């Protein structure tokens, strides 16, 4: 059993590794409100932006990659996304992801 501390070393790779143990069938990202700064505990209401958006995908990497754009970041900025992509767990290239808006 890995401890909380050991899982947090090299966090991006550890998160990607988790997806090989528990393989998600459907990944849902709740982006009703997103916290832009000072997370994850506390922070300020001013740091919250309201998107009222739900992202769902059968590809966990694609879901994360798209969610990254809400923060005005690139998928390549997120270690866990890059690590998972390199392990072949999903797609992170936004050009190759089809976004269907419902």
């Amino acid at each position, binding site marked *: 059993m890995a401890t909380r*501390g050991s899982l*947090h070393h090299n966090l991006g790779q550890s998160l990607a590794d988790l997806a090989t143990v528990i393989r998600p069938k459907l990944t849902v990202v709740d982006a009703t409100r997103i916290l832009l700064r*000072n*997370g*994850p*505990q*506390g*922070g*300020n209401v001013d740091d919250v932006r309201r998107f009222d958006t739900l992202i769902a995908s059968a590809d966990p990497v694609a879901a994360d990659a798209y969610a990254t754009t809400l923060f005005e970041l690139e998928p390549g900025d997120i270690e866990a996304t890059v690590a998972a992509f390199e392990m072949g767990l999903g797609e992170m290239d936004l050009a190759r992801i089809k976004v269907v808006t419902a």
Partner: protein
Amino acid sequence: MRRKVSKLSPSRWRQISQLVFLGFFLFLFVKTDYSGSDELTWAVNILFRIDPLLAVTAMAAGKTIIALMLPAAITLALTVLFGRFFCGWICPLGTLIDGSRRLVERSGAGRERDGRRFKYYLLFFLLAASLFGLPLAGYLDPFSILVRGLTFAVHPALDHAATSFFTLTYQHGPAWLNIVTEPVYAVLKESVLPFAAKVYGLAVVSLLVLIAVLGLGFFGRRFFCRALCPLGALLALFSRYSLFRLTGGSPECAGCRQCRTVCRMAAIDNERNIAAAECILCLDCLPSCPKSLIHYGWGRGANRGEAVDLSRRAAIASLAAGMLSPLVLPSRLLARHADPQLIRPPGACAEEEFLGRCVRCGECMKVCIGNALHSTWLEAGLEGIFSPRLISRIGYCEFNCTLCGQVCPTGAIRRLNRQEKHATIIGRAYIDRNRCLPFTDGVPCIVCEEHCPTPDKAIKFREAEVANSRGETVRLLQPYIVGELCIGCGICENKCPLSGEAAVVVTAAGQSRESSGTTIYGY
């Protein structure tokens, strides 16, 4: 045949009252817990507020009227009217002492009469000591003893037993068994088990004190109530003049002294006079009298019974001891320099008033959702045992929680609203660069900053280029504390991923309850 509707005996009515109040007490006790809401509706502090011993000693120590404790006056007024019914009919510890009697009583235990006076001396000592600056009443108050023992030891033990049992049935039991056991466990968790499994400082000590009080029954029935309980002694001073009372045998009664034999409080003397001060109205003597001479009623002018023969010398000595013993307090080390590890709950009064008001009931520790508050041992001196302190490595003070101030019966911890709570500084953190990973090992770690709950984070970063343990140069973030923003909640110390001591530590420096804490650096 209609007479079959049997009349309950007087002592049966008393037992029913005892059970009802014990049930009410246990209901309040279980309700004194977080249940998902920021506000508590019921808490056992209601019972502490009708406790005149704690009311008088807390007010004497604080030299002030504590409005929260005024309901205790009702208890005194009712005692002047009806006698010491509180001990016999209401007190949940008294009920447990009665209930455990058959387990502990030595056969042929006497009705020790001389011991009765000791509780008065104890009361005089506690009253004088509280007034002169040494508040100790919470150590001996029956409610405090009971609630501490139950909170710190008995309730967690029950929880552990239930969890172990139902984990066993869940993991190893057949499916048909789980159809029964799982709903039972769910109901228990919902109703009587604590919200979360917690740890408590001085759990074993508190349990031993409670067991010792019950175990004193070895020396005779209601030994604690008869010889030690200072609340009983205070009520006795009032019930001595009660308007309603039991009147017993006259010189004309047969002199069988059955009443004297059954009396658990040794309240009846050889001439069958019933001492209103000692009598707790258990009413066992009523059916014992072959001539049915004993009755309860208007007692003006009736024989008051033999009062406990207090030695004037001992009474004065107890008062003097209470007045004089506080004189040694200013010569202790902590009078000059308080223990910086001693962090009090948010809203706590300044130390001296805090200890004067704190009745050591343990309710704040019971409701603390971070499991951060624990019994102090000797860190605050002899008079500080069982008072609450924050131990960040065990738990942290939740930023939005105000429960401890809601349950404190005396206002030792003030009731804060959320804005006040956010602004209350209970201590301040510092970073130990000899242990902190980004400083010592060049390993990136931002855990403390992530958890810091203040809107403008009290932990910020400086970017630095350091050599790690392999000699490589790495760029990383090194945390530092912004003193003006830190409120000392302790979540950083609690969550620091290092094993053993944390690399970020909270001390009481800068706490807002002491006037010296108004500047960040204490000067």
